[in-house]
């Protein structure tokens, strides 16, 4: 394989990986805020893409995307408020089952609102034939959009968490909920905010990747599983590590076509997830853990 072609596969792997990372970050944000895994995370990407696709017929593309992102964010909020907020101290089993059920409802609703066919958003710049010459390889500009948008989202999130009061409040809640509440931080609002952020980010990711990978009503579940892989690989709750994890997964998946039949590409991410959970459950970049680990252990001291 020539250097240029290798670079093409590599970059494409990085791009898909960064989308997985966005899903993983969404998992982490909600996990940090609520201690639960939101199985419906992947559906937000699907919704963002689908809505933008419908809106693009009568709105200019940037507006369609903005509207889709906002709408999906609000839907995430609605989901949290209507279904999840009034459950106090539910057991883990219940939370899993509810979010799985919600992801199915969202997916079926999408099937009925749209259809089962594959759709695609218009290319943000140019079309499917345009390409840029980068380091000897010919790349679709959309690929670069994916990298840019993902990078901007991650950067924006990092700045948010580090420099804004709300962001710091969210970190405080994740670190020690009781202490945070005692300081007057209104946890419930932050939970709602975390759902908005996770949903909106997912929607934006769904919009930017749609021209390349297309959008279909049932794409959510496999994205959720791969996003979870990134979250766990980086260490659940560790937002920054999810990015690195995502890139790793994406590149490995992309590289796998050299050895595996195309049909098994999805299996790569799944195998990584199982391997990590069983071998090094705290993630590759094991930092300070939060809440409970995969084997049920609480983190820190006696």
């Amino acid at each position, binding site marked *: 394989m020539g250097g240029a072609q290798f670079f093409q596969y590599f970059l494409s792997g990085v791009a898909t990986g960064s989308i997985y990372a966005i899903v993983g970050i969404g998992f982490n944000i909600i996990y940090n805020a609520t201690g639960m*895994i939101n199985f419906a995370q992947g559906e937000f990407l699907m919704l963002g893409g689908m809505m933008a696709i419908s809106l693009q017929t009568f709105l200019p593309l940037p507006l369609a995307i903005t509207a889709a992102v906002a709408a999906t964010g609000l839907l995430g909020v609605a989901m949290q408020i209507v279904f999840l907020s009034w459950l106090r101290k539910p057991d883990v089993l219940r939370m899993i089952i509810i979010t799985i059920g919600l992801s199915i409802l969202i997916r079926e609703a999408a099937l009925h609102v749209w259809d089962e066919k594959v759709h695609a958003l218009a290319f943000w710049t140019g079309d499917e034939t345009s390409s840029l010459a980068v380091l000897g390889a010919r790349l679709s500009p959309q690929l670069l959009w994916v990298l840019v948008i993902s990078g901007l989202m991650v950067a924006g999130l990092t700045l948010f968490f580090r420099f804004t009061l709300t962001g710091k409040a969210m970190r405080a809640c994740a670190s020690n909920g009781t202490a945070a509440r005692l300081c007057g931080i209104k946890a419930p609002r932050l939970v709602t905010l975390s759902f908005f952020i996770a949903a909106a980010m997912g929607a934006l990711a769904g919009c930017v990747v749609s021209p390349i990978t297309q959008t279909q009503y049932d794409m959510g579940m496999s994205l959720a599983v791969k996003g979870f892989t990134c979250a766990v690989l980086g260490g659940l709750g560790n937002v920054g590590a999810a990015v690195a994890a995502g890139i790793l997964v994406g590149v490995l998946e992309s590289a796998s076509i050299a050895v595996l039949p195309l049909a098994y590409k999805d299996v790569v991410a799944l195998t990584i997830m*199982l391997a990590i959970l069983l071998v090094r459950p705290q993630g590759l970049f094991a930092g300070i853990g939060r809440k409970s680990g995969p084997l049920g252990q609480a983190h820190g001291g006696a």
Partner: protein
Amino acid sequence: MRAYARELPLLLLAGLVVGAQVSLSALKVDFYLTQLTMAAWYSLVALGLCLLMGYAGQVSMGQAGFFAIGGYTAAVISTTGMSSWLSIPAGVFVTAAVSFLVGIPVLRLKGHYLAMATLAFGFIVSRIIVGMAIFGQADGISDVPPYPLIAGLAITGKRPQRVENFYLAWGVVIVGLMLALNLVRSRTGRALRAIRGNEEAAAAAGIDVGRYKLAVFVLSAVYAGFAGACLTHFNAGIGPGEAGIMKSVRSVALVAAGGMANLWGTLTVSVVLTFLSLRGAFGLFDDAVFGGILVAIMLFAPDGVFSLLRHGIPSPRGFPRRAKGGR
């Protein structure tokens, strides 16, 4: 005298089954029997999951994977000219072996992680099935011959043996239910419930938690694999849809709606909903119905529909309402 009180519900069920067959045949609508037979086989899957999830507390989103392993093994063996009787035992054996090997590492996980891992397992099974030519890829395997039993009797969906297969399926379900009921009422059943309740305390009481989890995991998989193998012969084929996440979700929904640790509840809900689904009562919203059930049950009736009838809707705080003065 009291010993027989336990057997009574099972006898009533047997009576109900006979009654259903007689009346349906008399009304000349015995094509309902086919769907009731299929519903019976599918309910075996739910019963197995009930033992795993409801009693031992281990969430599994991969039950359909085991159903498919049993079914596809039986299909491959019976369509490639090997011995005609080997298919079902082989299906059970392979399912048991896979579940044993998968269970050893995976059951060390808990909660979300276990759910995701079993989900991943189901996905992987599904991908392998669709990917390999021997499994018929997207078309599945068809022309699976009937499974011969004794005296000309066979597991098949063909009309002449409709009534026999109805009784066969329900007979198996009743036996399966009886074994499961015996299990949960015994020392092993208490151990499983203890594991669900508090693993550390269960271990402190001398229970080898890892071994019990693995055993019930394999048992639950065997229930599913056996059902898969039998249904494959009944339907004369199997397709990749059987391994899908949606089928696993269905099983979870049925167990949850039935009341988690409630074998009778699971059976009832499973038969009713599966029958309705097979008859097309939910139309295009089939999957949505089961997804909706999951959400509704967990929000309004976390102890299952039958507890709803007994105790009413629990308070939104998620704690079951304490009955006044103890139960």
